[in-house]
């Protein structure tokens, strides 16, 4: 055995010169990567840096235009997922690849059946899964349809799926986005025990703190290129952020004290049941004053979206009432989104693709959505095209939306710039109350910084702001007060200075620590 092949075999996975184009987009540029056997290797990068594309190439979902993939020192051609699985690669996708109405057992067996009939496959899998879940602390109910299980369980099923197929290299794409801090901790323990058994783990995330906590080595991607490989022990958050963005970044925004004024938005005993009969909001009450940011934390799907949509007038109120900037909204006095806007409320929806924008519209059209009835945009018969475009140009410049082209289709802007379009549109109407959902979802770090600054400027200008986000760091750095939601109810309130991650994490799982209970007893809301 030559020295070269010996050293190659130390690497579970080696990429040499991987290149991938999608049409005009150069998603991966000449990527080299070496992942040592039996380590946890982190890959960080902003959205759109090409991490997911790279992992999809390793998993055989896409084929690279150029370059080699070597597993355990042997160069392989991975042309589909089947080959990848056979080569010992397992992947836990960001959006779980589960059949919702199948049981956990059926999901694991799918594609890895042992014969033409499924009963024997299921029996064999059951025995093997019991062994695996014991060994790695991954117990799941095997016979319940997946749709009835929590996301934490669903993720375990995904990991079990990979292990059942004999994965020796496990790729996890943004695995912690849907987990509480405690669930995240458990996941990292599982990964550690996998590592102890000799499995190689590749962890993709944009959360720098998790990289530092969980990995041995880390590689950084920027704009389709691999820009650095470092040992985790020899780096820190600031350096990694700078590598990701290519310039110095302020991770923590400077925030002065708030000066809360009158109550601008007040919710009384709001409840809501959806069409399937599930109670989504249960007796929610809260106040937001002028000049303060109230953050709503919680694992996604605990009623935050429903709360925002009800406040914005999209979903009608069942019971309870809302005081919006002096207007009352309840079951007997409904308001539609347009009336809500007129009452001085701006709404930045959680999902810009579903609610904030129409992807095939040009930027200037996107800028008037929801405000298309405004006097300044309308002539006697037709809309004032020229005025709308001029207005759009001006706002694009003020908000540094790139490229500054009013005619460009919204779909062709990057995530960060799309988000700026939505935020600019709402804030430029100068509302008194701002409802903000996931302002930086899918937005790169550089743009996050400027969006956060703008939100704080709005607060200091005396606006009342309700902020919903699943990013705890974002909630903690922007909010003056934090409410935690669980299963449609507000579990409790924490002042920003008392809001450490452990406390919020416990409350997100519906456990209120004693010191918070004591605080709430002192000053009733």
């Amino acid at each position, binding site marked *: 055995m030559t020295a070269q092949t010996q050293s190659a075999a130390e690497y579970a996975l080696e990429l040499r010169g991987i290149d991938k184009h999608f049409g005009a987009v150069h998603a991966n540029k000449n990527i080299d990567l070496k992942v040592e056997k039996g380590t946890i290797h982190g890959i960080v990068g902003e959205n759109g840096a090409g991490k997911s594309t790279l992992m999809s190439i390793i998993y055989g979902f896409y084929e690279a235009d150029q370059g080699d993939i070597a597993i355990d020192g042997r160069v392989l051609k991975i042309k589909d997922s089947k080959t*990848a699985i056979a080569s010992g690669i397992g*992947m836990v996708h960001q959006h779980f690849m589960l*059949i919702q109405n199948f049981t956990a057992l059926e999901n694991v067996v799918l594609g890895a059946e042992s014969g033409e009939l499924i009963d024997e496959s299921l029996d064999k899998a059951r025995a093997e899964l019991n062994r695996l879940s014991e060994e790695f602390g991954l117990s799941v109910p095997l016979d319940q349809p997946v749709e009835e299980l929590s996301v934490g369980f669903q993720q375990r099923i995904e990991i079990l799926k990979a292990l059942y197929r004999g994965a020796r290299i496990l790729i996890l794409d943004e695995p912690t986005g849907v987990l509480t801090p405690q669930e995240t901790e458990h996941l990292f323990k599982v990964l550690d025990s996998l590592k102890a058994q000799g499995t190689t783990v590749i962890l993709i995330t944009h959360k720098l703190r998790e990289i530092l906590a969980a990995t041995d080595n880390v590689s950084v991607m920027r704009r389709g290129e691999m820009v650095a490989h470092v040992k985790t022990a020899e780096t820190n958050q600031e350096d990694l952020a700078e590598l990701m963005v290519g310039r110095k970044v302020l991770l923590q925004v400077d925030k002065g004290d708030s000066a809360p004024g009158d109550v601008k938005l007040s919710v009384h005993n709001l409840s809501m049941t959806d069409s399937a009969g599930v109670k989504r909001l249960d007796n929610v009450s809260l106040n937001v004053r002028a000049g303060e940011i109230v953050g709503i934390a919680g694992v996604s799907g605990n009623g935050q979206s429903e709360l925002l949509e009800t406040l914005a007038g999209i979903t009608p109120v069942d019971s309870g009432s809302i005081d919006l900037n002096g207007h009352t909204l309840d079951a007997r006095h409904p308001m539609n989104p347009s009336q809500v806007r007129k009452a001085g409320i701006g709404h930045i929806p959680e999902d810009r693709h579903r609610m904030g924008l129409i992807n095939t519209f040009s930027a200037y059209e996107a800028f008037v959505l929801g405000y298309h009835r405004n006097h300044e945009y309308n002539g006697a018969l037709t809309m004032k095209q020229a005025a709308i475009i001029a207005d759009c140009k001006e706002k694009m410049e003020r908000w540094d939306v790139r490229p500054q082209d009013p005619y460009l289709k919204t779909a062709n802007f990057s995530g960060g710039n799309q988000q700026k379009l939505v935020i600019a549109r709402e804030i430029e109407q100068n509302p008194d109350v701002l409802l903000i959902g996931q302002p930086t979802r899918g937005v790169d770090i550089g743009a996050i910084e400027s969006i956060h600054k703008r939100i704080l400027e709005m607060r200091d200008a005396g606006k009342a702001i309700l902020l919903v986000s699943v990013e705890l760091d974002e909630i903690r750095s922007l909010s003056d007060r934090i409410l935690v939601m669980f299963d449609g109810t507000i579990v409790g309130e924490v002042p920003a200075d008392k809001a450490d991650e452990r406390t919020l994490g416990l409350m997100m799982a519906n456990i209120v620590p004693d010191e918070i209970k004591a605080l709430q007893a002192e000053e009733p809301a």
Partner: protein
Amino acid sequence: MDAFNSIILILDATLRNATPLIFAALAGMFSERAGIVNIALEGKILISAFAGASAAYYTGSPWMGLLAGMMASVMFAQLHAFATVTHNGDHVVSGLAINILAAGLTAAVGNYWFSQGGNTPNLVSRADELNARFEPIVFPFAEALADVPIIGGIYSELLSGHYILVYLAFLAVPLCWFVLFRTRFGLRLRATGENPQAVDTAGISVTKVRYLALLVCGLLAGFAGVYLAVALTAQFSPNMSAGKGYMALAALIFGKWRPKTTMLACLLFGALQAIADRSQGAIILGFEVPVQLVEALPYILTVVLLGGFIGRAVAPKAIGKPYVKERA
């Protein structure tokens, strides 16, 4: 006794009416469970009826007719797959195109071959010593028992004396259930209709599963068409499917995409048809029964079901969506 005989006759007609619906609905089940909307059942029935009748006429054998009908229907099913799976076409547009193609093609080619206004020649003709139609199967002792009260009616009239395809239709129901819910192919097929991306990442080819699903769909739809032209009647006539494909689709939805309930829905629709046929001009409580209303009932019931009044019909999640690998 008269009432009993009427009931037996209605039930007997129910079985005959339900047979093509069951074949077609099962065909639709394989397709829709794999995620392909199958509004093209109508066209598949029609083309297989035509091919079946023509082949039976030329060869003198109903079995050759069945073979030809199934082949024609499979070809149309694969055309549907080519449009919707390979080229990610809209399932409804492709289905409608196939229906229109089948209606036009059968009439035009039929007229060119046989010059009988689109009809095929009768499959039973004493002059040509031709008998290419399926023969009814008479159970042992059916004749002897025919005059025994009750038992005679049930055994000799209701159960005995149907075409073999009728019995095959009812055998096909548990068989399809077994394939869909107890085999690897069925597991993969159902998964493809729910979440094709998950199937792809599990190392299974979505394209292959969907083509295979439509192959089975074509085979089953072939039975339905051949039954109409080579068993129930003895010739093909233009548009003889008369909406049976759509009614089968309604039964499939009414049966919530499950074999047993779908079969029951087909029987219900078949019974309504039998009642409509018998109640032509009948007068109940001084009113003439409006036949059109009875005939419309299957569709009304399906709409009521979809409206959520009788339980909930949950379609396969990925139905009608072409599977395109998303750009990350």
